[in-house]
């Protein structure tokens, strides 16, 4: 059953549809109102990454960087080193893709509080195709010491994550999606960086997910429940530092795991979960995500299905994980 503490929407089958990037826009605006040290840097994608509201209100704190993601990371490093709280916004394929070394050396190793907003993540970017569908960004950021990595599941959580990151004092990566996606949490849903949230309680299999696919995970859990399979669904929005306690506790309860993410299965959430469990409480695990392939053009929902990250794929993975117990 749905965990009442999660304060999810009442009807999971009829969610409102809003893109996560809107959550960045409102979150960074809110952070900017709260703290005048917040500055926003954008690489020629102001409207698309939803920086426009911040840029209009706080024009002296908005830096248009042009198509120059490497310099954007460097300038942000300098600003943070001085004492500002910079958010850098671009598509995740370019930032933290193209500027990866600048982030590694000058933000992570330098340990300065820059917030990297990676937009248009996942195949759900849709028609733009593989060049613009970031599927390796979680892995790139997760391997960096000092870096915090957050993958919100909907627009509300995206806003909360953005606001929280502004005051965490650490280099932080936050991942946002382009297309409209289900809003499953509410303003009252708990959000703390580093604390996974149990969305649904169950005893047969733990579905540990992040990002927009959590809606599919909840739908899959509801349908499996009718077959007598009770899934525990965990929103593991913080990939790093990962909430080991919640993951281990759930694995002990259910004895098997399915990881769900709109990312390559190598190096992402599934890997982080496996690293946690293999050292503490090894259980069978199935991976829903991109199976070592690039994406392609299409509609978001078509691509999710085509690349086997839809509801049915999650159900199949759950059954398989249970069968391996």
């Amino acid at each position, binding site marked *: 059953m749905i965990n009442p503490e999660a304060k999810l929407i009442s009807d999971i089958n009829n969610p409102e549809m809003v893109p996560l990037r809107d959550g960045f826009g409102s979150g960074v605006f809110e952070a900017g109102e709260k703290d005048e040290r917040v500055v926003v840097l954008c690489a020629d994608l102001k409207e698309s990454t939803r920086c426009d509201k911040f840029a209009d209100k706080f024009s002296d704190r908005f830096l248009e960087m042009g198509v120059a993601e490497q310099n954007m990371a*460097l*300038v942000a490093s*300098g600003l943070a080193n001085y004492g500002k709280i910079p958010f850098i916004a671009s598509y995740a394929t370019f930032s933290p893709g193209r500027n990866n070394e*600048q982030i590694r050396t000058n933000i992570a190793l*330098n340990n300065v509080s820059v917030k990297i907003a990676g937009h248009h993540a996942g195949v759900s970017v849709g028609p733009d195709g593989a060049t613009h569908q970031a599927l390796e960004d979680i892995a790139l950021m997760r391997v960096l010491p000092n870096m915090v990595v957050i993958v919100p599941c909907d627009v509300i959580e995206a806003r909360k994550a953005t606001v929280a990151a502004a005051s965490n004092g650490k280099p932080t990566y936050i991942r946002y999606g382009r297309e409209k996606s289900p809003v499953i949490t509410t303003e009252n849903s708990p959000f703390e960086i580093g604390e996974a949230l149990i969305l649904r309680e169950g005893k047969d299999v733990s579905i540990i997910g992040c990002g927009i696919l959590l809606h599919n995970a909840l739908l899959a859990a509801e349908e499996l429940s009718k077959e007598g399979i009770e899934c525990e669904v965990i929103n593991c929005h913080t990939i790093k530092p990962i909430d080991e306690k919640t993951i281990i506790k759930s694995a002990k309860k259910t004895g098997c795991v399915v990881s769900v993410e709109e990312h390559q299965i190598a190096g992402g959430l599934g890997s982080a979960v496996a690293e946690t469990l293999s050292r503490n409480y090894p259980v069978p695990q199935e991976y829903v995500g991109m199976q070592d392939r690039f994406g392609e053009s299409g509609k978001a929902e078509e691509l999710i299905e085509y690349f086997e990250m839809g509801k049915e794929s999650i159900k199949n993975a759950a059954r398989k994980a249970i069968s391996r117990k």
Partner: protein
Amino acid sequence: MMSQYISEQKIEELEMKANEARELLIEMLVEAGSGHTAGPLGMADIFTAMYFHVLKHNPAKPDWEERDRLILSNGHITPIRYVLMAMAGYFPVGELKTLRKLGTRLQGHPERERLSGVETTSGPLGSGLGQAAGYAFGARMDKKKFRIYCFMSDGEQDAGATWESVMFAGKYRLSNLTVVIDRNNIQIDGTTENVMPLEPLRAKYESFGWHVLEADGHNIEKFIDAVEEAKAIHEKPTLIIAHTIPGKGIHQIENDFKWHGIPPTAEQAKEFLHELRTLRGKIKSEHQ
């Protein structure tokens, strides 16, 4: 004509200090057994001028908020910076012998979190200017009076990111930023003009909206004049192209790109130190 910014006596003092810095540098590189020799020797005069004349700083309070910031982009020449920091009192001179050893604060390439005063972590080329520009932008937002200096190599002008940062500093007219390029014409694989031609370097920066000065990087007086002139340039960042001789001070190393990334052997060091201590034969006995 004498400089209006510095006395003849002070210049002589600085020249002697630069020579002392070169000695300490050779000693530390031999002890480390790896590291770069030519670049740090070539920048000894300029770093001496910075730490003992130009910079507003307080070695006892490396985090003093109003200090001038010196961002070293080409982190591989950090040994000469460490030497001058030690001489200025940031840490004991004896600690120089820990360079590149396990547990040292003096990493092979500088790290901000390990040693106060190095300002940022650097080494991978093409990354210092953007950071310095970000620093300058932030400081200007808060109407801070301190200056931001960024030292770069000529080799890192090959890097695309450098030019992204050049455009940015030009666009935002960061006049609180003074950049010094160590124009020694060498990089690891040979001379800069053979590896990837940089000229006309001055015209390139000017076309990006910068004020550009040139100076002999071994003439402390001329260098200081250029630094002072930069302070009077408004609405533009300033670049000082400092023409230097790689390996300056030691005949065998001067202008030889093969000395870019290696340290002297103990045997060579003995000879080099003798050359420095006798001021190239100008005095007979070593001033130890």
